[in-house]
Every structure is written in C-alpha cells, then in structure tokens.
C-alpha cells in the first residue's frame, strides 16, 4: 500500500508540474503579444544569449566539424575505396540538420538556461519579484518575455553561424590533413546540401531557444528556499531543457523528414 501511495504521489506531483508549466507557458505567451514590451531588455538578452554564447558555440561547432570529417573518412575507408568523397556530404548534412542545432542548444542550455534560473531564482528568494509587483511591473513582462523572444531569435542566428564554422572545420581537416581537393570539397558540400537541411536546423534552433529560455525562467520563477533552492533551480533548468531539446529534436526531425 505504501508503495502504491508512493507511486501515486509521484504521478500526482509530475502531473502538477506539467500543469504548472503549461499555465506558465500560456501566461508567458499571452504577455508576449500584449504591451508593454521592453525593447531595451530584449536587446540586452539578445546580446547575452547571442553574442556572449558565440565563443562556446563556435568552438563546439568547429571541433565537431573536424571530428566528423575525420571519423567519416576513417569509417568509410573500411567499406570501399573512393567512398571518402562522401565526407563533405556527411559533414554538411549532419551539421545543418542535427549537430549544429543540437550541440548549440545543449551548450546554450548549460550557459544561458542555468544563468537565467540562477538570476530569477535569486530574485525570487530575495523578494525582488515581489518588489517588481509592488512597483506595478509584471515579472512575466519584465523578466520572462524578453528572454523568450531573445532565445527564439538568437538561437537560429547562432546555429547558422555554427553551421558555417562547423563546415569550415570539416573543410580544414579534409583539405589540410586528409589531402582532399579544396574546390571539389566545396562543390560537393554545396551540391549535396538542400535548403530544407538548413531550414529544418533553424526551425529546431528556434524551438530549442524557446525551450531553454522557458525552462530557465520557469525553474527560477518557482524556486524556493535560499541558496539550495536556487542551486536546485539551476540544475532543473539545465536537465529539463536538455531532455526537452533531445525530445523535440526527434519530433521536429520526424515532421520534416519522417516517412
């Protein structure tokens, strides 16, 4: 009986969590389309999410592209001679469809999601959110909406740059280490890549950006207690947004490329 009640309480807590997240998301979205909007805060968040994430996303992309080229080359060499020509195709398709958005999403979740949860969580436990309310400022409009909009807009931009850097990383390894013809590599990449590859990656990036900001804000907004509560909120933000990124990655892939 105790075991059953334990399962019941876990299920109820989970459903309560889902319900609260749904209401939080709906409230945030409704505030996105109602004035006042704070362009200054949106700009600040765009710089924080986009510009300051560029080094970490760029480094992740370039090494991913380099490793992908090297692994593809050595992997294909086991099957047939000459199949190395497919390296350019594998690099460009893998990066634009999958690795670019997913790796950028996970890296930004670690950097930005955690930071959002920590900042808003600290504001919660130090009554700064209550202070906003007493100053006639809706915390959703002032804190959540700018982060959601900035996440939604900046992740696609970051992923576009990550795609270019990643393909460049694959090019460098292929040409300077594996001895490929540079012109042939570029032609192969360009010819094989379809607009849908890039578009699907950018759509994923937009969704991931929204998820990262949403989970960061949600975890911080409902944090409790002191430093421990803020720490838990930070962990929750990163873990939940990472899981959601991987889940939605499959769903969007299925929508674009599912048979």
């Amino acid at each position: 009986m105790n075991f059953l009640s334990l399962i019941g309480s876990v299920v109820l807590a989970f459903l309560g969590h889902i319900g609260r997240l749904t209401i939080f998301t709906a409230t945030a979205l409704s505030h996105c389309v109602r004035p006042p909007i704070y362009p200054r805060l949106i700009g600040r968040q765009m710089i924080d999410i986009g510009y300051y994430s560029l080094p970490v996303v760029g480094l992740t992309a370039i090494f991913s592209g380099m490793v992908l080229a090297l692994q593809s080359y050595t992997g294909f060499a086991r099957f047939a001679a000459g199949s190395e020509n497919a390296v350019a195709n594998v690099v460009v398709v893998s990066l634009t469809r999958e690795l670019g958005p997913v790796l950028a999403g996970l890296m930004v979740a670690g950097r930005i999601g955690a930071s959002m949860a920590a900042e808003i969580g600290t504001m919660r436990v130090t009554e700064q959110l209550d202070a906003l309310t007493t100053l006639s400022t809706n915390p959703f409009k002032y804190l959540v909406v700018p982060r959601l909009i900035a996440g939604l807009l900046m992740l696609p931009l970051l992923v576009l740059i990550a795609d270019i850097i990643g393909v460049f990383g694959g090019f460098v390894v292929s040409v300077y280490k594996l001895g490929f013809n540079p012109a042939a590599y570029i032609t192969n990449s360009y010819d094989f890549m379809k607009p849908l590859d890039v578009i699907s990656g950018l759509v994923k990036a937009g969704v991931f950006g929204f998820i990262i900001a949403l989970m960061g804000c949600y975890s911080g907004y409902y944090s409790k207690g002191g430093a421990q509560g803020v720490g838990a909120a930070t962990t929750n933000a990163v873990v939940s947004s990472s899981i959601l990124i991987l889940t939605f990655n499959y769903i969007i892939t299925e929508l674009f490329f599912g048979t």
Partner: protein
Amino acid sequence: MSATAQNQASKIRLRDVHKSFGAKKVLAGIDLDIAKGESVVVIGGSGTGKSVLIKCIIGILLADSGLIQVDGQDVAQVEANARDAVNRKFGMLFQGGALFDSLPVWENVAFGLMQRERMSRAHAKERAVETLAKVGLNADVGELSPSELSGGMQKRVGLARAIAGEPEIVFFDEPTTGLDPIMADVINDLIISVVKQQGITALSITHDMHSARKIGDRITMLYEGKLIWDGAAKEVDRSGNPFVDQFVHGNAEGPIKMQVRR
C-alpha cells in the same frame, strides 16, 4: 479599533480574512481597520503570518476568503488592468531591501517612476536623487550598485524606492531587522518623518518593540492567525493581555509556547 479609525473612513479595511498554506492556517479571520494617515504596527513572533498579511493586501498573495478593501475598493475583485491603479497607491519597504542588484541605486529608486509613470530617464534620475536626499543619502550613492551598500544604506534606499512614487500607503516589513540599534533608530526617525510629512498611511510589521512603539500610532498583535489585541502604541506596556505582555517583555515563560525540539 481606535477612536480615530472608527471616526474616519478606513483607508484599509479587512474583514474575516483567511489564508492557509496546505493544512497550515496562517490567517484565521483577520479584522483590521486603518484610517487615512494612521500608522499601525502589527507585532507577533516569527512565522505568525505578518508578512502574509501584507502580501494579501498588496495582492502578491490571494486570500482564501474574506474582504480586503483599500479606499472602499475590494482589491481581490480588481480586474487585471485596474490593478495598476491600485498598486500606484502602494509603496513597500521589504525586509531584506529587495533591491534589484542588476541596476544602480538611482535606477532602483526611479524604477517605479520609469515603469509606472513612464517618466524619462533624465527626469526620473533627478527625482531619484531628490528622494535619496530625503533619506540622508547623497547623489554619489545613486551611482553605486546595491551590493556595495551596507545593510543600513540598503534599507534607506529601499525606503527611498518605497516613497519615490509618492504613494498613499506604505508597508514596512521588518524595517529595522538586522541593523545595529543606532542605525535602527535612524531608520525609525526616517520612517516617522516621511510618513508624517507626506501624510502617508503606514502598516508596519515588526518584532522590534522599540521600533513598534516609536513608529506606530496603534499596535496590534497577531497570534495563531488572529489579531488578539489592538490599542494605542502607548498602551502596549499595560495591555492587560498576557500574550502581549509576554511578547513585549520577551519572556520565555508565558502563554505563548515556542516549539523547541529537544
């Protein structure tokens, strides 16, 4: 209720207000009237629901039942778009200051002016500097970050933020907690001067009896979710109520039993 409060229309009126968190009843039928320009202090032990009472009036928390009126308007029934007009009447000094640490001091003070009244940054900064002067801080402090201020200075900035929008009602949540006795008295004097100068209605919560006697026209005591005593501040030392007596004198022995795990 005091004669003053009875004779004038209440600025704040609470009737049978209840608030629970799960099985824990925090407010169990609060009745309170505060007249315009009156300063009322709610005393009571830690965790008795004093902050919850203020948060229910401001609308940060929603009371489970009962009536909360400000100027005759039921604040629980106010539409979301009219909430702003009600909030304009309020200012609040939070226990820990609750200053926005991402903003400099002057922007903290001017925050309500810029957000609520759409004042330009330059004009709002002028007003912030004037308000900082009222609480004894010079313009240089305005450029500092809240983390660079001492506890007493943070309270002063919090007070400046609370009064910058010239509110009709100011709530003081433990205004002297964590301060040394001299700084606590400075804060008390500042509260008295701004409240009296601007004719503000004030509701304070504290367990600092020196502060309660000094800033309150009236004192009321919250115990187990109810206001068990209400009288003039000067009467608090001869209330005749054993709960109030124990609290005022800080005796461990008496009708109030602290739950101490041994």
